């Protein structure tokens, strides 16, 4: 008989994480929090640098429409900064972009989810993804040289036949570099994001409800109307708002195709408009001292605006996606 080997010492059983794990968890958590820190810092720095402008201009900074810094003969500098016209222009252009872009995106998403054969679907998904990857300056260049002449022609048609609607009216038939043109370029730029969000949401439509609709004899369109739209409509609204956030923040492309003038213009076809983001790069080159601070303050307003729109949009999209599971 052999002697029994000594039993190994019982392993210490513990739920306490090892040192390596603690380091790992600590690092990862720390880095995870960094994005929160960055976002806070962005808001903080822009607000801090723009603080002086907010103090001197007060509420007038948001409602005012003038942007001038006049140095009198005695060397006294009079500032008058207001982004009111630019804010109105931003909203107007974004509205044009949404009115044109969202229906096209929803139709594309419907086509891709329910109509397209597999091969065309794959191809079109690539096309839409590629659209998202195009640099914004490319949209600006193409928009200025290729799209603008066409859009000017469309604007002419709208002006000729629909002038009795106030927004399609214009003091003169001058349609170059108008909010309408900028809105068209932005419409194309927001299509990828709205399409991919809508597609994701349509794909989440509960299959049992789809099959139930077909079993009751619905046509494809009948099924979409009765099942897909009620389920996905709020998600599509969220997607459209993500597009809106994009449209608010887009800079270079809008700058190229828009004639920026510090004056309120509600005639979308008429050749001048405003846009906060583009105004910042327009004025940046010559800005010194107080004007730079005012531009940073404008950046802060843009940041807050896009942040709010995006947060709301993400909240809506997430809620819709959850309701499908």
């Amino acid at each position, binding site marked *: 008989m052999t002697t029994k080997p000594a039993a190994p010492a019982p392993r210490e059983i513990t739920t306490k994480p090892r040192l390596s794990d603690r380091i790992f968890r600590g690092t990862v958590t720390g880095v995870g929090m960094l994005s929160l820190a960055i976002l806070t810092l962005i808001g903080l720095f822009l607000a*801090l640098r723009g603080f002086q402008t907010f103090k001197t201009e007060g509420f007038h900074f948001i409602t005012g429409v003038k942007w001038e810094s006049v140095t009198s003969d005695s060397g006294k500098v009079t500032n008058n900064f207001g982004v009111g016209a630019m804010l109105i222009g931003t909203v107007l252009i974004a509205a044009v972009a949404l009115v044109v872009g969202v229906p096209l995106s929803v*139709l594309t998403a419907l086509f891709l989810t329910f109509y397209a054969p597999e091969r065309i679907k794959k191809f079109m998904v690539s096309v839409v993804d590629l659209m998202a990857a195009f640099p914004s300056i490319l949209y600006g260049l193409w928009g200025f040289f290729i799209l603008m002449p066409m859009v000017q022609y469309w604007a002419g048609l709208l002006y000729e036949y629909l002038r009795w609607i106030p927004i399609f009216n214009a003091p003169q038939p001058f349609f170059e570099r108008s909010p309408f043109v900028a809105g068209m370029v932005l419409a194309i730029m927001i299509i990828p994001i709205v399409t991919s969000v809508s597609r994701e949401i349509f794909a989440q439509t509960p299959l049992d409800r789809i099959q139930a609709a077909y079993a009751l004899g619905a046509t494809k369109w009948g099924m979409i109307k009765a099942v897909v739209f009620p389920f996905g409509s709020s998600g599509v609204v969220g997607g459209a708002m993500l597009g809106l956030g994009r449209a608010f923040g887009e800079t270079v492309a809008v700058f190229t195709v828009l004639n920026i003038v510090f004056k309120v213009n509600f005639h979308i076809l008429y050749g001048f408009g405003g846009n906060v983001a583009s105004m910042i790069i327009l004025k940046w080159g010559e800005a010194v001292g107080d004007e730079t601070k005012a531009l940073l303050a404008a950046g802060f307003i843009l940041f807050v605006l896009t942040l709010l729109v995006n947060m709301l949009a993400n909240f809506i999209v997430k809620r819709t996606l959850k309701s499908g599971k």
Partner: protein
Amino acid sequence: MTLETPVVVEPQRPWKATPRELAPTGYLLLASAFASWAVVAATPMKGKLAYAFLFFVFGTASLSINKGRKLGRSAAVDSIAGSVAMTGAFLVFLPVASILFTTIQKGVKGLHWTLFSQTMFTASYSDPISKGGLLHALVGTLYLILISVIVSVPMGILTALYLTEIKGPGSNFIQFIVQAMSGVPSVVAGLFIFASIIVTTPVKASAIAGAFALSILMIPTVTRTAQEVLLLVPMDLREAGQALGATQWKTVATIVVPAARNGLITATILGVARIAGETAPLLFTIGGSDKLNWNPFKDYQGALPFYVWKGLLLGTPESIQRAWTGILVLLILVLVLFILARTLGGRKMKSK
């Protein structure tokens, strides 16, 4: 005994339309094309827009009537919906085709070899395109991409690991923050780096300042793609690692991350594609030099989007030619990245 050759069963698709059933669609579309031509010729309407619009109206209407005659009213409505959806998708495809076509058509004229060996230091943007080049911009863009990758990829992947592996009490909130961050306008990112780094620290406008601004835009892209990929790694693998006695750190480092490697590379590439063409943040942060600058930490730097921007703003025929050629080079860069990401992403899907 000989092996029987296996009988391959041809799949039957009885629902597929036969040529005979498809023929009326063809006839009707032909007829609509002819009708729209006739109407344009007979009425004062003119132009490509009129042709396209009339063809759409006639085609949709005739197909719908054809369906409705056989199958009733709801089939007619269904046919209209199908045509409209298809037209919508086609209208989305058109600008992409036009953008690719114009960029290549206009950009190719300015391509020549010295473009990649010279800078704009001694040449002016309105000189003939054969003088000067975009070497400085190419070097600048490569530096910007390199530094942004060094900053954003570790940050993005670690944040994604926090969201998928730790799932701490704050992950829902951080997820929300990352999504909010991906909506930060690029011009704001540039302004922020100007207000925080360029004004207050010794780092002045240079490639590194530009790369910091681009990183703000790149981190959310990398995080979100990496997170999707990490979620695809089966839970079984993690459980197997833990069951074999590995610590969480070991499991993540030796099992989860290697399993997701291709996807993480795709995340990086998508992030690079996102920032390669960004212009607005660079206007505040890199200075936009026309000189070759090998030092990414000091002095003004050029970049491809900046080169295009300068050419576009100047507005002379030569400078606009430069802009088109610059954007063509940039587009090729983006396309290569895009195709790389696709093939890597596709491979990942297959191995699953």
